[in-house]
């Protein structure tokens, strides 16, 4: 078993799910609690990675991060090294790829909250921030947990995006799914089997936790 690849995948998945939560919380808050004209566009963009082939996403991410891409240029001028084929680049692309898996459970749990609780909080003098921290977050914690776990699991298993943006650099961008692919290409089925089975088990356990905690995981954008 390639522990280096496995550890790299875990590090990537952990980093992505944490950063993604920071990004997804305000995004889900805005989608759940505000009405504005172009909201459906934001919802479509967030859901896009669900339907887009990872290679398409990876391809555009690569273009954006490459030396001629806008993101790549900015990164180069700020930090003096390119963004593509680095761990950071991989994190950014993976965040995009797993975005719906973080945002949708949060939106689902936010929208299932009793609005009168939020009204009551406002009447009792609490501003938006206090209502969010004291009422919304504690009551929506299954959604938060689901978002964390799903984006972790989803990132752990990604392949197409990694291949396009990260390449196959041992210890930097060679994740466990790439490793499995390499083993199969080399006809080393035993090694591929070990790692694949481990991933299968991890995914199963993770999903069991999520379903155990919260039964509404796969509800799409919830009915209002």
């Amino acid at each position: 078993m390639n522990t280096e690849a496995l550890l790299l995948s875990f590090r990537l998945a952990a980093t992505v799910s944490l950063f993604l939560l920071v990004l997804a919380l305000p995004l889900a808050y805005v989608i759940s609690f505000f009405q504005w004209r172009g909201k459906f566009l934001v919802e479509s963009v967030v859901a896009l990675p669900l339907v887009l082939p990872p290679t398409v996403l990876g391809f555009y991410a690569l273009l954006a991060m490459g030396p001629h891409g806008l993101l790549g240029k900015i990164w180069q001028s700020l930090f003096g090294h390119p963004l593509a084929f680095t761990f950071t680049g991989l994190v950014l692309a993976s965040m995009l790829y797993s975005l719906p898996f973080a945002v949708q459970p949060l939106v689902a749990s936010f929208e299932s909250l009793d609005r009168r609780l939020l009204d009551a909080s406002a009447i009792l003098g609490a501003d938006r921030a206090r209502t969010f921290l004291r009422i919304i977050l504690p009551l929506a914690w299954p959604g938060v947990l689901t978002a964390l776990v799903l984006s972790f699991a989803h990132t752990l298993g990604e392949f197409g995006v990694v291949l396009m943006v990260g390449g196959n650099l041992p210890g930097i961008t060679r994740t466990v799914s790439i490793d499995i692919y390499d083993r199969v290409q080399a006809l080393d089925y035993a090694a591929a089997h070990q790692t694949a089975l481990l991933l299968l088990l991890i995914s199963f356990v993770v999903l069991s936790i999520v379903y155990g905690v919260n039964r509404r995981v796969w509800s799409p954008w919830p009915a209002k």
Partner: protein
Amino acid sequence: MLNVKIRKLFRSDAQPFVLDANVSFPPGFTVLFGPSGAGKSTLLDCIAGLQQPDSGEICLGEKVFFDAAGNLSLPPQRRELAYVFQSLALFPHLSVEQNIRYGLDRLAASEQTERANTAARNFRIEHLLSRRPAELSGGEKQRVALARALATSPRVLLLDEPLTGLDSSLRRSILEDLHAWNDANRIPILYVTHNREEVDAIGERIVTLVNGRVQETGTPRGVLDAPRTIELAQSAGFENVLPAVVVEHRPADGIMRVSLDHAACEIEIPLGEAEPGSEVRVAIRAGDILVATEPPHFLSARNILPGTIVSGETRGAMVALQVKAGTIFQVHVTPGAVRALDLSPGLLVWLVIKTHSCHLVR
């Protein structure tokens, strides 16, 4: 004094609905009464700042909550009011004490404790402070919601059917505590209810709302015992709202005669503003109709109608009879009366209705 003069249009529903209210609430209890869908909760939400009216203004004394012309709307946080929803909206993940202290976070900790304790004492929930809302009975939850609302020392109190679902003794006991609080604080209290018993227990003043408009303002007896619209008659507990045609005026007797149900029978009602020949409705409480098993004599009551009992249904401490006397009348009697007179379907009876028990409604 809380002054409300607002207009808000709802287009989204199949039928457009307009809330158009111009009404003032002095310190003390004012009951907001009306059929469901009349706009009572919307009115409270507008006062609280949870919904925005399209036009008009809301002010409490000198303090302006909302002024469409001045483009001003204070957020709910700054209106210094308390609002108990029908659903109560206790925070399920917080203890009773944390719920009560939630609105006090700007105060010093010692002050918070003191206020929370006072509120808990006023509503007799001191022994429940460490519990979660899920561990409380219905009445306890309602007490906690009131304590949480009043601990903030509001300048206006909005209560949206806060005591629904409680039995009457529990309701009376909570109302007594609320009355005691009101005597000490005297702020405008708007109390929405469908319950006639609560209206009578609260007593001071009533505003009726029908189809988004304020219909009448006055004392509960004055407004509810002589309702002037059919919607109000129905929600004020007038079981009989009968279509009628005015036959003739008899000003000398102070009455007019109306025929019910396409001239099936005629009764006398107090003289009102309706020309002979015009179509009106007559509202009569089921409990205001007497039942006799023989033709009664020597009564002052002017309306004595022969009829037949169609059906009877026991509802708690009363029996609801349907009697066909020209038209179908709903009549409420006690189970004792049913036994004593042996009232059963098919029996010939005489209905006795006082003229002043008959109310002309639009």
